[in-house]
């Protein structure tokens, strides 16, 4: 075997491992936030494993599809899921290197996630139900603003490190440690807002609502059932975990393993879980303390994020 080929195989093996790892952990994060939210409301909340039960239930159920649905409707959840899983291979999680970082960096990540979003939004339009259309239009409106802000935020970090490769970015962040450079603080605040928007959290969207007229992400899923729905739910959970991991990578790299040594990996796992947990608490508190924004005010919020990212970028040049 040539070294190139074996390197590639090794990378794919790691990529598969990392994808499976994030797929396995994602439902836990979702339930954890639900649980903490419930506690803040003096409610019991779901058991920690509820996310898995839900997925298992959906996967066992039959799929009901509208008679007017075409292949686009079928393809939507699959592409969305595939995109989320592919994206997991581009982000460093425990080790300061992404399995497939050779394939591309920030732009590939944003592009892959955008592809999934496009597939889901198109699929939601497919049945002709008014809610699907409403969800798609709202989701795309927000995406059109959030994606540039996300890229700008990531570019700020990229500018500091001189690379757009996420693995290299993490390594550079690890090398410099937590700097509390004003630029980092601003970029983090900007990106946190984007993460809330991208993962459908209050104040942008309400993941717990039953009101179809107010939904954004959920409105696109109203026509889905069974395994199709499971794919979307699972992929959304993975996306959320991925975004939080990205924030951890760029701004709180402490504890990340630099090699695949078991002890270092174990330490990295604890550190990663702890940092994601802290971010999950931040998400929970934001969700509990705020009402959802009026839909037409969401662009203002995203603009704030864009402004923060722009400031952060400017400070880098000073």
């Amino acid at each position, binding site marked *: 075997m040539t070294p190139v080929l074996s390197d590639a195989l090794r990378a794919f093996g790691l990529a598969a491992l990392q994808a499976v790892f994030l797929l396995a952990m994602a439902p836990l994060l979702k339930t954890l936030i639900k649980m903490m*939210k419930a506690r*803040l*409301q*003096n*409610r019991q909340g779901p058991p920690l494993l509820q996310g898995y039960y839900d997925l298992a239930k959906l996967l066992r159920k039959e799929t009901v599809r509208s008679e007017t649905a075409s292949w686009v409707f079928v393809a939507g959840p699959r592409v969305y899921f595939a995109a989320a899983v592919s994206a997991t291979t581009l982000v460093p999680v425990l080790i300061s290197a992404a399995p497939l970082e050779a394939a591309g960096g920030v732009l590939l990540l944003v592009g892959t996630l955008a592809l999934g979003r496009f597939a889901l939004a198109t699929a939601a339009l497919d049945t002709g139900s*008014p809610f699907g259309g*409403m969800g798609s*239009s*709202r989701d795309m409106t927000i995406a059109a603003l959030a994606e540039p802000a996300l890229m700008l935020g990531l570019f700020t970090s990229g500018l500091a490190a001189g690379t757009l490769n996420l693995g290299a970015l993490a390594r550079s962040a690890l090398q410099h440690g937590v700097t509390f450079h004003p630029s980092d603080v601003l970029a983090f605040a900007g990106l946190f807002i984007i993460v809330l928007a991208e993962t459908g959290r*209050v*104040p942008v969207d*309400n993941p*717990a*609502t*039953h*009101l*179809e*007229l*107010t939904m954004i992400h959920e409105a696109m899923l*109203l026509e889905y059932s069974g395994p199709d729905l499971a794919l979307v739910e699972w992929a959304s959970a993975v996306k959320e975990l991925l975004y939080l991991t990205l924030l951890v990578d760029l701004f709180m790299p402490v504890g990340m393993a630099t090699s695949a040594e078991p002890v270092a990996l174990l330490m990295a796992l604890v550190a990663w879980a702890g940092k994601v947990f802290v971010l999950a608490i931040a998400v929970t508190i934001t*969700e*509990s*303390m*705020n*009402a*959802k*924004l*009026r*839909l*037409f*005010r969401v662009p203002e919020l995203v603009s704030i994020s864009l402004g923060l990212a722009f400031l952060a970028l400017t400070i880098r040049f000073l």
Partner: protein
Amino acid sequence: MSVVSTVATALGVAEEVVREVRAGELALEVERSNLPALADRVFLGLEGRLLSLFASDERQATGRFVVRQVWSLPGHRTFLHVAAPIDPALPSFPSISAKYPVANWFEREVMDLFGLVPEGHPNLARVALHDDWPEGAWPLRKDFPADRIVPRVQGDFHPFRPVTGEGVFQVPVGPVHAGIIEPGHFRFGVAGEPILYLQLRLFYVHKGTEKRFERLPWRHGVFLAESISGDTSVGHALAYAHAIERLANVEPPPRARALRVVLLELERLYNHTADIGGVATDVAFSVAASRAQTLREGLLRLQDDLFGSRLMRSVVALGGLRRDVSPEGLIKLRKHLEHFGKEFDDLIRLLNDAGSFGDRVDGTGILTQQAARDLGIVGMAARASGLDMDLRRDHPHDAYEGLRFEVPVEQGGDVRARLTVRAREVAQSLSIVRQVLDAMPPLSSASFRHPMPTRLPPRASALGWAEAWRGPCTHWIATDERGEIARVKITDPSFLNWPGIVQAVPGNIIPDFPVINKSFNFSYSGNDR
């Protein structure tokens, strides 16, 4: 000058024509052709408010249908019944809807259920019956057997207003919704997110309750009245009981009247609390929402404890109450409400302090005072749009006569104004219950229920009313020649108020509709009956 002569003068009729049926109820019979002119006089001369408009089938006794109106004359502290006999050979009556939109749904309902056509009505589409119901089957006519099953017919699509224009489209929502709520169809005409107009289609839960009453012994009616709208069980039970008691000329003992006030105010408290929480839920302000839920649950448990029923069912009885409350129970009630009052103030502070919440409710869903007046909006919704009305003050029932309370009125007409009116009403309710408890007539045997006569007077009618938490619940009850029920007309405030939302919504965006809807929280069941 007596009330009768004042009213007769204002209406331009001879004094003998206006009859005082009993305290607080005047009656007047007119030719059907005089209905529009009379409506003008009642609206302008007496500042009357139309509370109900309906028909009754009296062909067996007099060979006529009768179209009836019930007006509230708050300035004179009396209701005015207007009756216009209709010859079955000419089944129509002049409409007043074009001038007084408050009559719109009422007149169409008469058309649907009795086959009497309101001549000159601007929109003669069905309202109570759906479009798959056959022509010529009028369920409230006496010759329509209550157990008759009508075939479903291929009807036309309901004539919704079409939409035209570039980028303008319709969003149909319901009757089945994503959450567990009652069914109703909303059709939005929208340009993107902004709503141009809204059309409603209700009556998906029409149960024929009024027809059911006609076969029910009057003694059993309270149970049916309680189920007209689950969240207004006390309101409707009281309206029914009041009507029967007025027919039988029975006055419940003072303790029962005092406790009835407590029941009605508790119903107001738990519903206002739940709806304030509901508004918070709809804008995803979850902490406030669950605090409101907790407060509501506390009240329901207290009610279960005191009356044996969480929603206070089977407590009101004809002639008084079915059961009394022990002195320890009343102490518990007082303590609980003291605690509730503090917690409720905290909740309101939490909502008022949250900028993100204020941003969602300020200026959202404005029902202007003019629109509310024209549409005849009643109750809490009317008070939030600057209309000062409350049957508890204007036509006192039970023990309200001697109580001191203010009627909160807000001018904004938006979601915030409705929240504020609710919050202020909660404070008033707490004060009312405190006053009642302070002056509670003592417990003594059989002091909570006056015996009812064995028979009601034949061929009589009476109005029962109660200002429930949404607004006035009225029951008009007529007896036949045996003294059994011939007709019950139930008017839930929701029936008067639903058209208000059509005016409150345009100009807002679709995702704000649920919170506007929740701030009113009309009953589907009470509307559809």
